[in-house]
């Protein structure tokens, strides 16, 4: 029996898979089975292989084959290489990735180093949020003098931020458009079912 892919060598790998009640069979030679990644039974779907044999366009339509809109990397590429195409891929494949990251790491939120230029913005955002909360509380409690003070502080902070982001833009001029609109845009973590630190206890 010849290999279904190259049709020249003797088939030595025989695969049978039942997909939605239908039996699918494929016979491969050793070389082709390696090339198709058949040796890894977990990452391999017969359907992908069968589709790949005749209908490349089918994959495009396949809802499982999501592509990154920025760099064009596909989920199939990711399966094959285990690497992503660009930083925006973390957004494009967020759904599949979050489960994977959960198994891989000790948590889903980075708690380590932050680049200095972002650290300022991050801490400022937090300060602003705290001031805003104080302002709302002051208004509720009808402490209007406090509220006025807080409002001035917020305005000051916001105006400082505006100035700096403008000068920051001029420093970075001439670059390609950013893949990420900003660090705040992505929300990969589905917080509802994720404990704050699902780390394994040692």
């Amino acid at each position, binding site marked *: 029996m010849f290999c279904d892919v190259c049709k020249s060598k003797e088939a030595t790998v025989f695969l049978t898979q039942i997909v939605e009640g239908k039996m699918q069979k494929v016979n491969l030679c050793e070389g082709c089975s390696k090339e198709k990644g058949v040796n890894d039974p977990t990452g391999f779907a017969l359907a992908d292989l069968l589709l790949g044999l005749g209908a490349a366009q089918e994959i495009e339509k396949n809802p499982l084959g999501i592509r990154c809109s920025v760099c064009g990397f596909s989920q199939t590429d990711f399966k094959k290489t285990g690497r992503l195409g*660009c930083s925006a891929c973390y957004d494009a494949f967020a759904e599949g990735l979050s489960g994977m990251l959960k198994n891989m790491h000790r948590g889903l939120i980075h708690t380590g180093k932050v680049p200095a230029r972002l650290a300022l913005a991050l801490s400022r955002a937090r300060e602003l949020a705290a001031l805003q909360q104080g302002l709302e509380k002051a208004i509720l409690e009808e402490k209007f003098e406090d509220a006025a003070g807080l409002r001035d502080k917020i305005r000051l902070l916001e105006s400082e931020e505006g100035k700096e982001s403008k000068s920051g833009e001029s420093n970075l001029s001439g670059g390609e458009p950013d893949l990420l609109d900003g660090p705040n845009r992505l929300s*990969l973590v589905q917080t509802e079912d994720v404990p704050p630190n699902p780390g394994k206890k040692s």
Partner: protein
Amino acid sequence: MKLSAIIANTGEWLSGSGPHDQIVVSSRVRLARNLKGKPFPGWAKKAERVAVLDEIRGAVIQLPEMKEAFSEKLEDLSPLEKQVLMERHLISREHAAKGAGSAVVMNTAQTLSFMINEEDHLRMQAIRAGLQLDEVFAMINQADGELEESLDFAFHNELGYLTACPTNVGTGMRASAMLHLPGLVMSEQVNKIINSVNKIGLAVRGLHGEGSEAMGNLFQVSNQTTLGEAEEEIIGRLNKVIFQILEHEQNARQILLQQRAETLLDQIGRAYGILCHAHSITSKEALNLLSFIKMGVDLGLFPGGYRLQVDELFIETQPAHLQKGLQATKLGSEERDSLRAALIRTKLKKMPEPEIGKIPTTPPIVQSPTSEES
């Protein structure tokens, strides 16, 4: 700075000293970084890789700590030179396979090296002798801080530093220590240790990292996870585990000395005999035997002055290092084996035989007065 000038000298991580350097050969921390808005090296087109290379290399060679740096594109290095750098742990095996669009920059002390367009745009590492993970982290963290003034790294508010492989996302940090554990191997405890280390989310690997064999009783312990913990926490956890392994190794050696001194001496003596008289030896055999000599030095069976010579042989007997003087011809493996044997014979020529009297063959409870005369 020429590569030949750099590799003529042994790197500081090998020749220098550090805490616990008898068992902890070296400590290393590497950080993975990518430029914002640029496809990762594995997916980028050649022109994009070259542009990234130029931008990062320009920034790296401006660093104050890289004043007298060696900087070369990988396409301009010969396969032998790449392998020499790999054998010194200055570039990864993966990086050694790269060509156009990739580069390496390192300082003359060989403590800092920057791989550009490896799996990520930038992989930078600091390496030093002995157990000093905190110190090497401080070194590389400072370089990272200086670089981020001119380079815009891809960073995500929740996921941290973004990397080509999701296993590195977050801190992008891999901290590792190379441990020499002949005692645990001889007393057959090493698998137990590896298993328990694996269970707490740390990895134990062979000499050249992922997928490589453990030769010469050398093991690399590193963090597996990079997201959910701060850099200092990861290093703290790693330090704790390394101290425990260190203690186990010291205990294993003591127990071997007390209970199986004959076996231990036999192994060291045989290693010495073969290394001093062999005319053909593979690098694997050489490393495994050198490991016993190294332990012999630790135990005081050889004069302390030979430590560096033995340590250097671990590197000098590697395939590319053997040939680095004779770049015109590429040697076959048989020629290398006899060249290796000759090198070891020359280097160990002046080293005296192991002083067996220094090992107490029975537990040292009462020292008989006549034993010194014999």
